[in-house]
Structure formats: structure tokens, C-alpha cells
């Protein structure tokens, strides 16, 4: 089973990368652009077909390693 994990910075946390990318794109002429926040993305393959188990496993991976819950949120999607 394939799972997508998206990790984003919490709302009030500074995103220096997003800021620089935003300014660059605006300078390149993207006038309607108002905000960009950068995050991480993982595509995970698991040898297991039970959705519940997969979700539980991936959730624990996020908590234990992939995301830093102090500044980040995560989202799990089976794809």
C-alpha cells in the first residue's frame, strides 16, 4: 500500500524558506501571489493491505520521526 504524508509548519511558526521563495516569485513577476508556505512530502510504501494498520503505522512514524510536532502538523493520505 502506498501512503502520502504531508508535513507543514504550524500556523504561527516562521517559515524562512517559504518567505524567500515568495519574494523570489514575486520579483519574477507573479503579482497575484500572496503567500507560500513550504513543507515536506513523503511517499511511503508499506507491505500491508489492512488500511487501519497502515494508518496506525504511518501515524506512529510521523510522531516518532517524520514530523516535529512542536512546530509541524502532518496529514496522511492513502494513495
Amino acid at each position, binding site marked *: 500500500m502506498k501512503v502520502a504524508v504531508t508535513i507543514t509548519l*504550524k500556523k*504561527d*511558526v*516562521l*517559515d*524562512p524558506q517559504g*518567505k*524567500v521563495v515568495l*519574494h523570489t516569485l514575486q520579483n519574477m513577476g507573479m503579482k497575484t501571489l500572496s503567500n507560500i508556505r513550504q513543507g515536506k512530502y513523503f511517499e511511503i510504501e508499506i507491505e500491508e493491505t489492512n488500511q487501519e494498520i497502515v494508518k496506525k503505522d504511518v501515524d506512529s512514524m510521523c510522531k516518532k520521526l517524520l514530523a*516535529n510536532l*512542536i*512546530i509541524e502538523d502532518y496529514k496522511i493520505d492513502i494513495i
Partner: protein
Amino acid sequence: MKISDNIIEKHGLKKDEFQKISKLLNREPNLLELGVFSAMWNEHCSYKSSKLHLKKLPTKNEYVIQGPGENAGVIDIGDNDAIVFKIESHNHPSFIEPYQGAATGVGGILRDVFTMGARPIALLNSLHFGDITNKKTKSLLNGVVSGIGGYGNCIGIPTVGGETKFHKSYNENILVNAMAVGHADKRKIFYSKARGVNKSVVYVGSKTGRDGIHGASMASAEFDEKSEEKKPTVQVGDPFTEKLLLEACLELMKDDSIISIQDMGAAGLTSSSVEMAFKGGLGMELDLEKVPCREKNMTPYEMMLSESQERMLIILNDGKEANAKKIFDKWDLDFVVIGKTTNTNKLTLKYNDKVEADIPIEALSSKAPIYDRKWKKTKKQNKKRDLIKTINLSFRDAIFKILKSPNQSNKSWVTKQYDQLVMNDTLLRSGSDSAIVRIHNKEKAIALTVDSSANYCNSYPLTGGKQIVCESWRNLISVGAKPISITNCLNFGNPENPEIMGQLVETIDGMREACEYLNFPVVSGNVSLYNGTNKKNIFPTPVIGGVGLIENLNKISDHKFKKTGSKILVIGKTFGHLDQTVFSNEILSLKNGPPPEINLINEKNNGEIIYDFIKKNLVNAVHDVSSGGIILALLEMSMHSGIGAKIAKPKHSLNQFEYFFGEDQGRYIIEIDEQNLNKVEELLEKSSIHYDKIGHTQIDEFQIEKDFREKIIDLNKLNNKWYNNY
């Protein structure tokens, strides 16, 4: 809004402190005012527990331009060159979010240095982690080291030295201390003291977000189970913006635009504005709606207490605004006049023309509480008799065990993650007794070292305090530098506990004695208290950052053996003190006993003769003997050079374990050419300095009498193992 007891407590204030605030104001504070007080009156800003004792430290010698009290200390190294430096802790934030905590620690200390007009030229750090079996230790180590590297590497300042230690007393409270060193023109040092009424107060740098609100209070609060809830207060660092801020500030500092400048560190806008006004005997009025904000709908409370990074407050001379703004525009940084200086002696905070807070500056600064806390002397423990009878390891196995131990392992896993050479003036990198950084374009350099000895200090703080200053001094001497002055970071537990307070008081006493005797004053520092959890306090851990001067680049030394066939001498007397040493810790698993004593007279004499040898080019290599004793010092000289040694203990001397593993203080090992031997012995004898001739260098094998014989390559493998397998 009525201020409840709960709110007071949440602000880290005691009830009687709240009453004192109300008395100073002649009324109850509102929430914004309470926030401002809590930031200014907490331990981190007010030094309320330590102030009385810190005063005892010597702060002057012929080199000191500026001692403690400014953003950083300043010393004069001749030709109008000044060195600006300070060390600071970021312990609690780093425990909560190691990467960002450590990174912003580096960012913060850098601002302290460049706010004074200095270009930062070196970074160092002292790291204390919990026991390696603690399950948090590995990720904290990884996060902290990459955070320190991430910030320093990006901004382009070499990280040239430091220390990394593990001990279980830091399991729930690691220590991350960062030191920054800058170079300035002595005639162009900038201070935080405001001058003149009606001058523009300018906000520059990054926008203000909700980062670290109440970080300063958190930094001085003891951890408990609930500290998880405090997590969102950790700030995120942006080294790229800091680089812009650094360049913009230094550019603006070229002319006479700036009256005073102060970085926004802990307690951000609050402490910077209060400090500038207080030092100038002035007031300050801020229009908070002008503060550049990152998020919508930020309240005055949030703006005043935000600890967003990479910001500065500047007071400008009349008519300089337009030109200054141009510079900050060039570097894509915010530049906004947010207020002015006044003659009211008050901090007046307005939001859309409405006065939201109005506080006498003195109430926030000189009238902040100072405590003479109860303290208890630490009892000096008796020396253990016949320690070596309990040894159940062979000499050889003991050496192996120590080489493999986390605390004595080669630290290149750490130091390779730091750019040590950028700026191209690093003449001696991490892994040496001190780093050497050249003053750009000049024929002189400074030597830098960071040291701590928590075991010694925990056993007997008075000796520990002395020892740690001496160790710093010795490390500078070892590379051929004249020790000039120190900065220090005092990491201790809860000062409301008289035993802990006693550790602080006696450590300072010990430091004072050594600093005075060695003419090695303290020019800056930082105190971090409440390090511990649920009444379990960390070992008392003063960290000393030493700075020395090298006036001739051809008269420096390092600890690597240079050639085969030269003589090896130990300078200073060996008594075989084993209590509190690496040996007793790692091999005997003993925790008690007194630390090795310091004899300041010998310390000074021995150091001065080593310095003299280096200046006379009589030595090939010098290494001070510190943790691990003679054996570890010798092994390092071999392992780092690839050149072996053949060693024999002096006859009629102590037992082998005592001689090689003892940590008696004030000793050095030197490598000298055979033809210099007579000269060196003559000089030593003339000064009545004890020395032992213990052997000579040889190719690629390290050998001690009949008991130890090993290829250097294999020793290196052993010594490099731990970090790479952790």
C-alpha cells in the same frame, strides 16, 4: 481585566513580587504591564539571585575596554583592534526543540557581538547531554549539533571549538552554551546607552511573530510535566536574514548615524527598549501599531513579549533616517521608526494613540528585586584511600575502555558538521587545546577555548571554580597565547534550594580567586538557573570561554607530535590524584571523593615557563594535561599526528595507574628536540619547576614500558568508534 493569582503565577512571578509591582506603580498593573514586568523581573533579565555574588568577580585588567554589563565584553589587543566576546546559554529551548533551540542560541549570541560594532570571526560551544542510554540523548545530540552548524555555516562564521559531554545529570535538562567572538575597531564600539531626547527609535530586521512568547520566563522556569504545554514558544531561526542584518548593521555603523543600538534577545522589544532607556537615564515612547508584524491581529502584549529572532532596536541621530533606511532596503530588511526617546523616565506603550502601558523605567530595572538567597557550604569529601586496590582491569584494558568512552572519544563526528575554515583565518581548528583565529590582514591572532568540569564542581565547587579558570588559562598557554580575559556561563539548578545556591556562591568564589591571581578577569557572561526537573538539579556547570592574544604568528604551538626521536617531558608535579577523574568514573565507577586541588602559584609558574618555551621556539608540541591524565594527553598527541611514542614512568614514582591517570592540575606535556634538552632543563631548574623525562617519540607505535604497545592507526580506530556507531 483583573489580574488573578493564576495569571501572576503563569507569569513566573511570586505574590510578593506582584505586590511590589503594584507599589512601584501606585496601582495594579494591567496585563500588558504585567507581561513587561514578568519579562524584566525574571531571572534571565534581572539576575536577581546571582547579582550580589557576580559582583565579586574581577572585571578589569590593562586590556579590558568594557567589562560585564554591555551586550558583550571588549578587550584591546593593540593597533586599535578590539575583540568583543560573550557566551550565552540556550538550554531550555534546545531541550524542547534541539535544532531550532541550538540554532537560535547561536543567532542570539552573534547579535550580542555585532550589535557592538564587531564583525563576528569565530563561534564556539559547550554542550552537555544526558547519559547515552537515555532515550532522548541521541536525537538531542543530532538536533543540537546540526542546529549549531546550520546557523553558523549559513551565516559564514567558523565554529572553531567547543566541548561535548555526557552525564546523567543532564538527562532532562541539556546544556547548550554558545560563544561568539568578534573583531572591531576600538574607536568604533557601539553601546546600548541612549542619549538625547526626541531621537528616533528604529526597529530593523525581521518581522515580529508569535514566536517564543514568554521564552525568557520559560528559560528561567524549572521544568515539570507540564512543560510540554509550553512547547509552541520555541523560536525558529533564519540565519539568512541574520546575515543580512549583520551586513546592514555593519554598513550603517560606518558613519555616525547611530547613537545606540541593542539587539532584541530574550524578552525582545521589552528588554531592548528598557535597557537603552535605563542606561541613558531617559524614557521611551513606542507606537506599537508601527511594529512590523508577521501575523494579523497581533496584540501589544504579543508584540512586547515576542522573541522573534533577527531583530534590532536602534536610536538614530537627527536626520539620519533616510540614509539608514536606504541601507536596510538594500538588504531587504524592515526599517521602521516606531517611537522616540523622552525625558519622562517611563516606558510608554501606545497602540493607535491610546496609552496601553506606562511604567517607570526604574521599576523595571534598578528597582527589580535582588535576592540574597540562603546558601549552604558544600562539604569537601575525604580522599579515598588505596583506590587502585579496587582495580579489576589491566592497564591496557583501562586505556582501551577510556579511548572508547563517549566522553573521551574523538569529536570529529561533531566538528565536521561545522564549517571551521570559512573566513580563511582559522590557523588552528577544533581538536586542539585552543583554536587560533588570525586577525584578518594582520600578523597577529587570538586563541579561543571553552571549558567546563562539572564533576569537579559538583564534588567541591570552590576548587571546581578555580580549576575551570585555570584550565582555560592553560589551554590558551598551550598554543602560545597570552591569556587575556574570560567570559562565562554559569549553568546551575534551582537557586531557591540552599545547597544549589551554595554551589553557585562557592563556584564564583573559586573563579574569583583564580581570575585575580592569574590577572584573567571576566568581561562578560550569562547565568542560567533552574536547570533541572522536579527537584533533580543538574551538576553545577560553569563554562568558561577564554581569550588569549598571539602577537607573532610564528610563535604558536599545537599538541601534535612533530617528529620521531624527540624527547617528551611532563612539566609540573604528578601526585596521582584519582578521585573525581575520568579513571575513577569510567574504570572504578566511583562518584565521590574530592577533585584535584589547585595550587595557583605552581599553575602560574608552570604556565609562564611553557609560554616562554614557545616564544623561544624550544618546543615542537605542547599539550596541557587535563581529563584522563598524562596517558590521554600523550595518546592525543600521538593519535592526532600519527607519530608514536615510547614512554616509561619515572623510577621510584607512583603506581602506574596513579601516575598515568591522575589528574593533578597545572601540568603540561612537551615534545622537544634532543639538542634543546639542556637548555630546557636549565630553565626549568632555574625556576625550580618539577619535571619528568618520560620518553621519546617514534614511528607509528605507542608504547608504555612493557604493558602497552599499539599501532597508532588502531588507537585512532578505537577512539573514532563511539560517535559513528551511536
